[in-house]
């Protein structure tokens, strides 16, 4: 549905995106992930024919974005970072205007506006001024304008930015329900969003694609070392040294847990070797009182950080941390 090949864009001397290539299949929900300024918005603006690329090609639904922009624009629904809504217009009138721009008029337009309002949960506010709506509802109006002409491809630039947690959940649900047979490209720098909505992720950093796969595959790929977290009742002296001396252990760190009543050791195995049996044995035989042993999987944040930050070797990317943002 979307084919991008060696796409580059320069802003003066600065390279916003650098020869990126990717494809999106029909019906896929692609998460476009990257820190601010990574080139997500630039790529989306090129895909929606808002601006031309410096080099490379992009095809949407079989049409080149530069050669046949009108054909591409007919098939794409786009929600930019700032919802492009007119504050002094009534919601339904605004959607009718957008439909008219797509050549949908008369009774067809009425139907299209009606179903867009319903799909986005806007039926209650159809007669209200957009400027008087809350940020969450304005965002919904932004999504409604993107789907009013029933496009094959939906491109959403940070659809949940600036919303409160409840609204975020609602918008995510809305996006999921819209996906269906549509192809959706969604950009975000909020990680759980990708987890909940996308079938595939594309991580972009400094204008380059650093990873592209399903989420599970990417984190498996990165889980080079096996990381084990060990919770013990008594931090007996010498435990640290014993753990370190286990064959196959690369690193051990210690942190207080349960308000100092217990201690947690994070043991990293070299080359992903199996060390759980040896480690637990030491914990038991040393009389530390083993409370818990578990394998830490790399959370999405860590995957993301690992891919988008350049750190000196021996980085702490494997360190477990809470999943909340």
């Amino acid at each position, binding site marked *: 549905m979307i084919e991008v090949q060696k796409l580059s864009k320069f802003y003066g001397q600065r390279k916003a995106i650098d020869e990126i290539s990717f494809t999106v299949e029909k019906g896929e929900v692609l998460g476009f992930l990257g820190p601010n300024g990574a080139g997500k918005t630039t790529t989306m603006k090129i895909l929606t024919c*808002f601006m031309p690329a410096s080099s490379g090609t992009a095809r949407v639904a079989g049409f080149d974005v530069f050669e046949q922009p009108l*054909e591409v*624009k007919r098939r794409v629904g786009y929600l*930019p*970072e700032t919802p*492009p*809504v007119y504050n*002094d217009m009534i919601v339904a009138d605004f959607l009718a205007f957008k439909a008219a721009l797509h050549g949908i008029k008369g009774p067809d337009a009425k139907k299209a506006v009606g179903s867009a309002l319903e799909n986005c949960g806007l039926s209650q506010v159809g007669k209200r001024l957009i400027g008087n709506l809350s940020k969450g509802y304005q965002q919904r109006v932004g999504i409604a304008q993107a789907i009013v002409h029933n496009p094959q491809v939906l491109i959403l630039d940070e659809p949940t930015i600036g919303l409160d947690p409840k609204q975020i959940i609602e918008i995510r649900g809305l996006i999921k329900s819209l996906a269906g047979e549509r192809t959706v490209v969604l950009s975000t720098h909020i990680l759980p969003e990708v987890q909940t909505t996308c079938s595939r992720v594309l991580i972009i950093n400094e204008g380059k694609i650093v990873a592209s796969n399903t989420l599970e595959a990417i984190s498996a790929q990165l889980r080079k070392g096996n990381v084990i977290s060990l919770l013990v009742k008594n931090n007996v002296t010498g435990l640290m040294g014993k753990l370190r001396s286990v064959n196959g252990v690369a690193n051990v760190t210690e942190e207080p847990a349960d308000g100092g009543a217990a201690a947690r050791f994070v043991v990293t195995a070299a080359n992903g070797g199996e060390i759980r049996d040896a480690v637990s044995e030491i914990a038991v035989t040393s009389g530390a009182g083993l409370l818990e042993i578990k394998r830490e999987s790399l959370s999405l944040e860590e995957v993301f950080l690992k891919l988008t930050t350049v750190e000196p070797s021996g980085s702490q990317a494997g360190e477990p941390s809470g999943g909340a943002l």
Partner: protein
Amino acid sequence: MTLSNTLTIAKKDFKAYFSSPIAYIVMAVFSFIMGYMFFSILNIYVMQSAQFEQFRMGKGPSLTENLIRPIWGNMNVVLLFIIPFITMRLFAEEKKNHTIELLFTAPVRLSEIVFGKFLSALGFVTVLLLLTLPYPLTLSIATKPDWGVIWMCYLGTVLMAGVYVSVGTLCSSLTENQIIAGALTFGAVLFFWIIKWAAYNAGATWGEILGYLSIIDHFEDFSRGVFSTKDFVFYLSAVGMWLFLAYKALESYTWRS
């Protein structure tokens, strides 16, 4: 370029004037100033007529020369001040609110957007001109004004306003700041009003060129009730040129942004 898309955009922008206080404030200000001017000019005309009746000396004041032409001449000056306020929002506001992304990613051509915006502003100016219809109508109750002259004055005014609006469209496409757009428009339009001043000191050739560029000179014939093809073409080509520049400015905006 299809008419349907152009009209969709024109309609949206025309309505936008009336869904904010802009339209009503501008209409009120314009009506007040024009009403005051009509009243004053009419008073002077009545005085002159009375004096002529009393003394029967020289030439009597004529309805066209002493009433209709001054009114339209002044109307053009008022429009010169008011039109920048009407056109400044056309593109600047869309850029500021990011709604330009909606227009530029919709399946419409840039030329349709530019022309649609131009039509919306010119449409609103036409509404302003309609507000002045009561003046000639009241005249025709008391006397017999030359409606040929009046209609030609209206046509000339619409054409001249078209040039103002096209300059305004260009200026608004250059910036996302409405004040800047308005100030640029006012400066540019005023300059083309007084461009002839330089003609007096310029050589013969340059003098003629500068004189030809003067917007107001091309109104002369219309204000006498004469349809002048030459001036008609001048106004249309000026509109075309400014809109083309606006088109180019917006095209480069997407290349740069």
